[in-house]
Each structure stands twice: as C-alpha cells, then as structure tokens.
C-alpha cells in the first residue's frame, strides 16, 4: 500500500487507523482504488480498522447516495435501498407483515445501537468479502430486491 504523509499511522492509545483520505460521494464512483473501502454506517469496517485487519488508504462515504428508501415493485415485491438501516428495515410495515423472517433475523442480532447505524448493504460491502470495488458499488446501488409471488416468497440480491 502506497503511503503518503497523510496516510501515516495515527495512534491513540492502542488504536491505529491507517487511512488518510475521506470523501463523500453524491453520485457514481468511477475507477478502482485497490486500497479504498466504501463505508456505510461503519459498524463493521471501523471495528476492523481498529484492529488493523483493514487498513484502507481511502474511505469513501456513501451516505449521501439516495439509497435510503424501501419502495414497492409493480410485481408485488419490494426494493430495499442499500443504505436503509437495519432498524428501519426491521420495522418497515411491509417487511413486518409480508417478510417477517427478515425482521426476526435482524432484531435477533447485535444491539439496538448497532442496528440503528448499520446499513442493509453491510453484508455486501463489508471487507471480509473480497470483491472489486466497482462490483461492490454496483451491488450496493441495487440493494436488495424481495419478490413476492402469491403464496410463496423468494428473495435474492440483484
């Protein structure tokens, strides 16, 4: 990893965060930066950065992208924006009524504080999944689509 003066280690007690650049995106992201990481809420990435398991040279904050809503599809399903928080997703009226397993799974994990700050796409953008940043952003942009077919439900990441 190339180190510039701005990306020198920052030490506070036993915490080392090796990153020098932070930027917020309001539109698409072009190009690839091998050492860049997208950040949604940060509950996973910052945890790993403090342990130096992740050491990005550039943090790209996605929170300004308009991916924070849940919308109904003409086919009867739902499209869930990648930046919808776990709490908002679990408490959404349609999710609770028609996809209650999603609600149950979400509230069974973490804590109220973590669920409020963690985004839906954390399972896609989290660093433990090795994906090129462009594919990660493509997945994050589309979020999750839940399709409902009459008596049965099928969920997939689109």
């Amino acid at each position: 990893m190339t180190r510039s003066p701005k990306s020198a280690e920052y030490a506070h007690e036993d915490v080392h965060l090796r990153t020098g650049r932070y930027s917020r995106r309001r539109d698409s992201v072009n190009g690839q930066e091998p050492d860049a990481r997208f950040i949604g809420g940060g509950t996973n990435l910052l945890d790993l950065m403090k342990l130096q398991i992740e050491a990005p040279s550039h943090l790209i904050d996605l929170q300004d992208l308009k991916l924070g809503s849940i919308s109904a599809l003409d086919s009867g399903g739902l499209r869930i924006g990648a930046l919808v928080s776990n709490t908002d997703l679990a408490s959404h009226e349609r999710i609770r009524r028609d996809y209650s397993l999603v609600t149950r799974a979400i509230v069974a994990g973490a804590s109220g504080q973590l669920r409020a700050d963690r985004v839906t796409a954390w399972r896609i953008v989290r660093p433990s999944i090795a994906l090129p940043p462009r594919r990660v952003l493509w997945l994050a942009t589309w979020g999750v689509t839940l399709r409902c077919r009459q008596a049965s439900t099928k969920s997939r990441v689109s």
Partner: protein
Amino acid sequence: MALNVDPRTTLLDFLRDHVGLTGTKKGCDHGQCGACTVLVDGVRINACLTLAVMHAGDRVTTIEGLGTPASLHPMQAAFVKHDRFQCGYCTPGQICSAIGALVEVERNVPSHVTDDLQVFARPMRLEMRERMSGNTCRCGALRKHS
C-alpha cells in the same frame, strides 16, 4: 460548532478529546459495551464505531445535553430515584440508550422478544431488558436498569 479534525477521529474521541464533553465514556471501543451511546438526531448509536466527519451537520446529543444537576432529564431523575448506578461509568450510555429505546418503541421498532410484529410493543420489563442489552454494567446495577 466547526472544528477541523483528522478524518480518522471517531465521534467518541471527537466528543471527549476535541470538544471536552467527557460524559460519554469509552468502555470497549468496539461497539459491544454501549458506554459510548449517544443520540444522533434522536437515534441511539455507538459513538465509537462512527467517525466524527461522517456526522457533519447532524445533531448529536450527549449526556451533558440532556439535563443539569439542577434540572435533571426525567430519565436521569428516574435513574437516581431507582438507584440504577454504582460507579456511574456505564450510566451516561445507559441513559442515552434508554431514551433512544423509548423512541424506538414509539416508532414501532420491534425487538427480539416482541411477540406479535403487527402490534405496537409496549415498554414492558421484558421488552426494555432486551432493548437495553447493548449496554453492559460491571457493578451489578444491571438488574435494576430494566
């Protein structure tokens, strides 16, 4: 308030080291103990797992912003009345978290122990015990927190 900080500064370190609001505590620094719980636009989060720069423009409420010794927030007064702390280290996070939990109940946010997802959960003892499970206490005052 406008301050220039290193983008790697967590919201927790920003509050404590740069703004001087030391009421919010650092326990585990990894989002497990809840001692760093603050309210961001009314929503409870762990300040240790977010960066200060990510909250530019947000309204952050710490324990200092809830009340004063002369004018306690109702939740602070309740903690005093029901003897809900010993050393007090986890207490600021507990109070902020409890306020955030009640807001979630009002917003019809379910919990792991919510029986019927279609019905508004009432802040009963079992619900509050579950919703406060993100805040730990070493002093043994935890039983009274719910």
